[in-house]
């Protein structure tokens, strides 16, 4: 198939728009999978319970700092160190962003 000069940019625009729609409209964001590993203790809305603290709606930077400090050991914990070590810096940022936006 030959694509003329006008057609190529148009085709690119078309296909790229289609691709762009795909992740937001059709895919499941990966952070939801990651956050699913937290809701069993912190609650489906990150609301917390009697002693396990609320994380939903906290400041994004605060969550991120706590997660990093649990991972490094700077912040003492009973169990968060063992969980935090399982995530990369980028994943922690995504998690912090996700929970900061919860009610």
């Amino acid at each position, binding site marked *: 198939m030959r694509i003329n000069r006008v057609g190529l940019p148009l085709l690119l625009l078309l296909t790229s728009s289609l691709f*762009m729609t*795909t992740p937001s409209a059709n895919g499941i*964001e990966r952070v939801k999978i990651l956050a699913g590993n937290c809701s069993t*203790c912190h*609650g489906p809305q990150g609301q917390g319970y009697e002693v396990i603290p609320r994380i939903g709606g906290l400041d994004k930077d605060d969550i991120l700092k706590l997660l990093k400090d649990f991972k490094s050991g700077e912040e003492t914990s009973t*169990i968060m160190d063992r969980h935090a070590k399982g995530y990369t810096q980028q994943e922690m940022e995504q998690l912090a962003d996700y929970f900061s936006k919860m009610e």
Partner: protein
Amino acid sequence: MTIKKLSRRKFIEALGTAGAISVVPWLPANIAQAKSAGRIIIVGGGYGGATCANYLRQYDPGLEVVMVEASKKIVTCPFSNTVIGGIYKINQLTHGYGGLKKNGVKVINDLVTNIDPSEKKIRLKSGETLKYDRLVISPGIDFKWELIDGYDEAASRIVPHAWKAGEQTVLLRKQLEAMPDGGKVLIATPPKPFRCPPGPYERASLIAHYLKKHKPKSKIIILDANKKFSKQGLFTQGWKKLYPGMIEWIQGSDTTEIESLDVKSRVLKTTFGQTFKADVMNVIPAQKAGVIAHRTDLVNEYGWCPVDQRTFESTKHKHIHVIGDASVAGAMPKSGYSANSQAKVCAAAIISSLRSVPMPEPAYSNTCYSLISPDYGISVAAVYRLKDNKIAKVSGGVSPTKASKRFRRDEADHARDWYRGVVEDSFAAKVKI
């Protein structure tokens, strides 16, 4: 970055991290609305099944999700050892499916008797048949009764296993209440793998907690089928501290198995020729995937269901996913938390497949809290990823051996909160403990 340099998949991933991009107005509505057509049926409304149903609806509120569960209400195995130890009542661990129904899950209270993978339909005990596009089964475990001479379902109403919560749990509790001070309790553990690796030892602990207060001259024997057990160092340390001299652990060996059990006289014989007699016996038989998995030819030679560990799709039948205790899930133990975690990954896999988009890279997790007493908790935790198509541990471990009283008490509090959390997350139900 240009599109040409990136594969479609990489491009989508890059976009995913860059953030959501709104729908272009001229797209046809069916693409824009992100609905996945199809009916998903879930067999079993325990930890795996209920979580999967709940999250399928959460990820895609337009999806038809039907869950078939044999019982009207679920009695959870997690925390059932506290009932045996006299701390909570069984009704506090009993939850309905109202929350799931509110979230749009169609709940059918019936037994699935047959699955036809080629026709993609299931048959219920009531006679009804239902077609599916994807099937998820989370039937939990059943027992290899044939391995112990004299032990079967009927015999378990005299010598309980209490490895499925409900009547069995209450029966064991009643027998402990009726036992005189100075009595002997025997717990026989199953060979690995079995559901809830720390479960038998938590049970011994909470029985000891009860006996110490009410029948302090009594003894507990754990007749183990295995050479070592989960959180062994921590349990042993806790027993020494809280129940000195009360719990005796008899190590298993490769050559010794339980040969027979006479439930009337409560006498158990091993293949090594030893005989054990006790006032209260709790025999936990060897396990396999729930019978419906066997009937559907979803199992391997050991009686468990092999799956693609990324999607939990059976390697034996297409479009059937197996999660929870019944599945072979790499390094993950058979726990309620694991089943909950697998269910979420499975839900994402199914929706991605129905929409023909790549699924997000999975991450899984587990934590098993155990109570040695109501104020003394220990844990084992892990985060897992897929490595060479197998679920492998990337972080985690057990509670520290050196820890303050406060630390142990905090973990006991966390255990109760975990129970509140996992029940709400899985069954959309509120816990009153």
